[in-house]
């Protein structure tokens, strides 16, 4: 800001340089302005350092109205039926973590706003590759984080983590806030194998214990409350039983969110203007046999791969879980089958499968 002010002063002085009187006046004014700037800078630097020692209460109060509590599936065998999220539009778009909590067709996903209002949420789309999802509630004039204004953090940056960790807050109670610093700005893939995660991208590694039950989907902000990241899921190192606290930087997930908001992540089978080819591709023509579809949302796990088929050539294997077909999320056998109906038999089909903690992308043409 000081730079901008100096720039403005310099521009103005050039414009006024035609008259000596004006110039003298201008010089005097510049002197006083410089003195003011000097004082302001000194006071400002003192204020900033004092501010570092002061309460975050005002910042936190400005962030809390953007936070939401999410309740959905789970509640058994240590799987919590809640997580966190935050508003990313004034009309009720919510960014959160893609997890089993949202993966429900029998139960409603409930959103509780900071003011205690409750809404049923619709899943607009998800990107399991980076474990994010966007929900939508029917509301307007909501406070929100603008993803375009998200800030970048470097190691050492002081951060605040907002989440409904352990579901401590209920109704209109504000979510929990933890403070800490970015310990490293690095790539999570470096620890793949030790930590059970499919995410390979950049991550803010945090020195605070931010990633606990229910914290996933929470907001990581800088100390001024500006959005910087999305709190990830709990991540345990199976080798030494240590836990990693991290957040996904907003730039890492922004493109996926935009895709979801643009409607590109939804199964095309759910689109109103769908068009079917004359002859569709089928699982049989690819050589894929899924596990029997016995429950309402059977995950599309591959049961068998018939030898000599495109699937076998692409090295697809039993127990691979199909996540995407032509970049569209397919979170059940039924949706996968429906999705294939809209792909022409002569066209390429790109599948993303999860094998253990690896994501593998293959391109197939039917036989």
């Amino acid at each position, binding site marked *: 800001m*000081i*730079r901008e002010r*100096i720039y403005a*002063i*310099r521009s103005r*002085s*050039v414009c006024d*340089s035609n008259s000596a009187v004006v*110039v003298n006046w*201008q*010089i005097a004014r*510049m*002197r006083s*302005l*410089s003195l003011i*700037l*000097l004082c302001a*800078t*000194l006071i400002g*630097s*003192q*204020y900033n*350092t*004092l501010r*570092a*020692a*002061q*309460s*975050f*209460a*005002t*910042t*936190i*109060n400005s962030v809390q109205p953007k936070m939401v509590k999410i309740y959905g599936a789970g509640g058994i065998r*240590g799987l919590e039926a809640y997580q966190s999220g935050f508003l990313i539009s004034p009309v009720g778009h919510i960014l959160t973590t893609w997890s089993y909590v949202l993966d429900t067709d029998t139960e409603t996903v409930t959103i509780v706003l900071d003011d*205690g*209002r409750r809404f049923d949420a619709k899943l607009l789309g998800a990107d399991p590759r980076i474990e994010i999802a966007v929900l939508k509630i029917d509301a307007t004039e909501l406070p929100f984080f603008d993803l375009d204004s998200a800030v970048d953090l470097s190691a050492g940056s002081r951060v605040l983590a907002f989440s409904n*960790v*352990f579901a*401590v*807050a*209920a*109704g*209109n*109670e*504000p*979510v*929990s*806030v*933890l*403070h*800490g610093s970015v310990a490293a700005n690095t790539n999570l893939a470096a620890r793949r194998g030790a930590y059970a995660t499919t995410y390979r991208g950049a991550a803010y590694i945090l020195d*605070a*214990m*931010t990633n*606990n*039950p229910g914290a996933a989907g929470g907001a990581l902000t800088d100390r001024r409350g500006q959005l910087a990241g999305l709190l990830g899921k709990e991540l*345990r190192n199976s080798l030494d039983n240590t*836990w990693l606290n991290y957040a996904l930087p907003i730039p890492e997930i922004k493109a996926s969110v935009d895709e979801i908001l643009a409607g590109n992540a939804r199964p095309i089978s759910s689109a109103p203007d769908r068009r079917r080819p004359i002859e569709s591709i089928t699982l049989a023509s690819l050589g894929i046999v899924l596990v029997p579809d016995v429950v309402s949302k059977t995950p599309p796990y591959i049961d068998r791969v018939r030898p000599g088929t495109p699937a076998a050539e692409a090295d697809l294997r039993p127990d691979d879980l199909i996540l995407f077909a032509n970049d569209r999320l397919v979170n059940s056998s039924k949706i996968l089958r429906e999705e294939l109906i809209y792909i022409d038999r002569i066209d390429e089909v790109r599948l993303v499968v999860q094998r253990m903690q690896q994501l593998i992308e293959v391109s197939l043409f039917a036989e």
Partner: protein
Amino acid sequence: MNKVVHKFAIIAFLIPTFAMANLASGQVAEAVRQAEQQRIDAVAKAVKSAVAIFSADGNGGGSGVVISPDGYALTNFHVVQPVGDYMQCGMADGRLYDAVLVSIDPTGDVALIKLVGREDFPVAEMADSDEVQAGDWCFAVGNPFLLASNFEPTVTYGIVSGVHRYQEPAGTILEYTDCIQTDAAINPGNSGGPLFNAAGQLIGVNGRGSFEKRGRVNVGLGYAISINQIKHFLGYLHSGRIVDHATLGATVDDDEEGRVVVSNILESSDAYRRGLRYSDELVSFGGRTIDSPNAFKNVLGIYPKGWRVPLSFLRDGVRHDVHVRLAGVHAVEELLAKIQEAPVEEQKPKRRPGDGEQPSDDQEEKSPANPHGEPAKVPEELQQYIKHRSGFANYFFNELHRTRVWNEFHDATGDFAASRADWTLAKGADFAITLGDEKSAIKTATATIALDRGKDLSEQLEPQGSGGMLATLHLWRRLLVEGPAAFGDVVYLGQAPLVGHDGLHDVLLGTYDVVETHFYFDLTSGELRAIEMTPEPGTDPCEIHLTDYREVAGAKLPHRMLIRHGDSIFLEIEIDSIQLSKPDKPEA
């Protein structure tokens, strides 16, 4: 000219650069130094009052904080439970002090202990914890993992993560209501220790954390009992009793419109007698707005059994403001049984101070008082401070305060032990009230009402509508003449508010002739301010408020009495003559 302009611009431009150069060269801005110094000063001030508690037999321990120069200190119930009557307390000055248990609040997980040996203990300054906000800096002081071999406490810094949190009992008796959540590390051994604000003022007592799959170590969520809740209980905690929490006798729920409504109510509750009914909407309780069931539980949790708390509710759009007397959560026997069952959450440290640094997971350490593992005996000089009685944590302190209250009353109003003959209170020819051991009566121009000493007082609630005015006055005289030792069973209840009067009052609870009577004494003047006689549980007491104390035969007695029963004033009387006839020396 342009050069001139540029020069100023450059000067202005250089300022932040210069400031950065200062930082780069290791010079720190004055404001940062000041902030750092403030933090150092706050910590230095705060740690002095912290206490590391060790059981005498090596089977428990935790932390605490001294709150009065004569050594009263707060800790958790779950810290003292396995420790027993006597413990040892290390302080930041490196000295070890003996301490005894005073009182416990098992539901609120609070205990009061008393350190002995000094009258000038360093004391924690209490703040108003309702002023605490999420985002405020705070720090916990204590002895996590018993790291401090020289009793120098560990300080963990953090922020307040949330306020007015409700943490349900979750299988234990310990219920944390209206508590402060912090990300300052609270670990085993921190229990009972203080949570301070950035100025080093006491805002809470740490005692609980959210633990799950990562073992019993801090995961960023610790909880402190707010100091404001403890302030409400503190008078009770000095009583040596086992203190109970309160219930409204009604449960609440939120309806579809988000209103907090009564979902169930006991007809025997005071709330019911004050007019609260099923489906009424609660709007305010204890002076706080109620907008969720948790908000209701939070308010309920910060008040002790027996307190009268303002309650406002809506019915058909009409607001009703009442004061409700809170009943106990537990029956006495139930509370005693639960205390026996209560789980011990604290680690069992066995460590000898002065042994030097040891690994925190070392389980083979020795306690300070018990290096050889023998059963700990209460030192002889401490035995005088410990007295057992069922229902009490330490009856010694109950007697201590009962005597204190009585002595203060004596000093304020005089000694009535010699005034054993009948007393007469009268106003001209309007009425005369006679109070005596054998006969008590009210005589007006048209009627005479007398107590029948052959019947229980609980059956004689005359005059009708008063709730037992004559019986209450009879008991009043009995206490003044006999004193608390001979009245019946008299215990010091603690301190409680009195509707219509500011502040708290010392309360003696007397049981005589099947009725319970509360005597409220003014903390400043020592005068007896009110009497409440409850003929049987679940009924409204007869309340007599006593004012206008004037000289009578060398003593002072009230000349104005306001008699209340239920929601209405029964009578207000002025007395113009009081005669305390003595058998051997009748007063004029």
